[in-house]
């Protein structure tokens, strides 16, 4: 080692800070809700890819309705469930911008089913971030499409009865099955490894869009400590132990074009 390196070794380096693409505003999310974490991860990747000035967001109706205020992006709030249609309108006008939607499970999988299926089906070149917290968070914890079998919510007081309500919806699998989707993955954020994987999935989804590969979607198993009646840590454990069993993590669709991107890194 030469002298110069030793000197430098004493320097303190900032290794983690608030991403630039995140505004200074405190979010309205409840304490420990991973909505915030997912917002942050998206901001980090936007910083990393240097696309903050080139990206337009479409916020949902749901706990993330303020997404447009949390990210330093041009943005619009779509009617409940219609974010993919609004995003389509934007992207068709501005094909060289990155267009992202951020949607809850009620928003995307219930009222917005048609719009997301059609956006995937047409292979619209946008990226949808899908936050699956197994209930309608914002309205106070009603049963969502993704509510697990037997899970108690304010509208399934006896637990979700799959006889009358069907099995929970696996959006990643469903959208992966459509010809227009290029990249579909399901992630979680309950520990360092899953957070890293989530960030990688976000990155790949956005790179897919930037490469014009078609529709990309990243599903996140997300916590809702408030409506689940759990502490934030317990909520993460519940995701890990209970949700993942029904909603396996991983990549469900990697089109050839995306495969090539992935190889390139």
């Amino acid at each position, binding site marked *: 080692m030469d002298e110069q390196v030793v000197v*430098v070794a004493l320097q303190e380096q900032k290794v983690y*800070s*608030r*991403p630039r693409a995140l*505004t200074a505003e405190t979010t309205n999310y409840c304490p*420990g*809700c991973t909505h915030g974490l997912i917002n942050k991860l998206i901001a980090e990747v936007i910083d990393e890819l240097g696309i903050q000035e080139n990206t337009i967001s479409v916020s949902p109706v749901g706990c993330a309705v303020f997404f447009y205020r949390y990210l330093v992006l041009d943005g619009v709030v779509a009617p409940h469930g219609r974010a993919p249609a609004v995003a389509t309108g934007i992207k068709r006008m501005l094909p060289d911008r990155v267009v992202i939607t951020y949607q809850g499970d009620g928003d995307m999988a219930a009222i917005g089913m048609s719009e997301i299926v059609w956006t995937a089906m047409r292979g619209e070149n946008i990226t949808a971030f899908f936050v699956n917290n197994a209930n309608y968070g914002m309205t106070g914890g009603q049963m969502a499409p993704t509510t697990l079998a037997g899970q108690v919510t304010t509208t399934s007081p006896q637990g979700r009865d799959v006889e009358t309500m069907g099995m929970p919806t696996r959006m990643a699998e469903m959208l992966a099955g459509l010809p227009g989707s290029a990249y579909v993955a399901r992630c979680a954020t309950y520990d*360092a490894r899953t957070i890293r994987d989530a960030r990688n999935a976000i990155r790949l989804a956005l790179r897919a869009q930037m490469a014009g590969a078609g529709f990309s979607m990243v599903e996140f198993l997300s916590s809702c400590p408030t409506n689940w009646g759990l502490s*934030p840590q317990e909520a993460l454990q519940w995701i890990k132990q209970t949700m993942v069993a029904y909603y396996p993590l991983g990549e469900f669709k990697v089109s050839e074009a995306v495969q090539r991107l992935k190889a390139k890194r």
Partner: protein
Amino acid sequence: MPKGRIVIHVEACKGCQLCTSVCPSGLIRMSASFNRKGYRPAELVDPTGRCTGCALCAMICPDAAIEVYREAKVKPHAAPPVEEVVVIVTEPA
């Protein structure tokens, strides 16, 4: 072991305790006082300098309330691989 240090933005913290649960050395605890929003913010209690700057706490913080500093041999262009720890060496917006 590298030496590290974290800064918690008191007003951004919602007291969710996720950071306390992930710190490998248990160096974070909740403050006795409230912030303006009425939460008890997290604080670093590291009298013996055991923080390694591993950034696990910051990674999991849903409110981006934690900044992490680490003493390191600075080789030019040798930032830790992004896949492992996000290195975004800028100030918050």
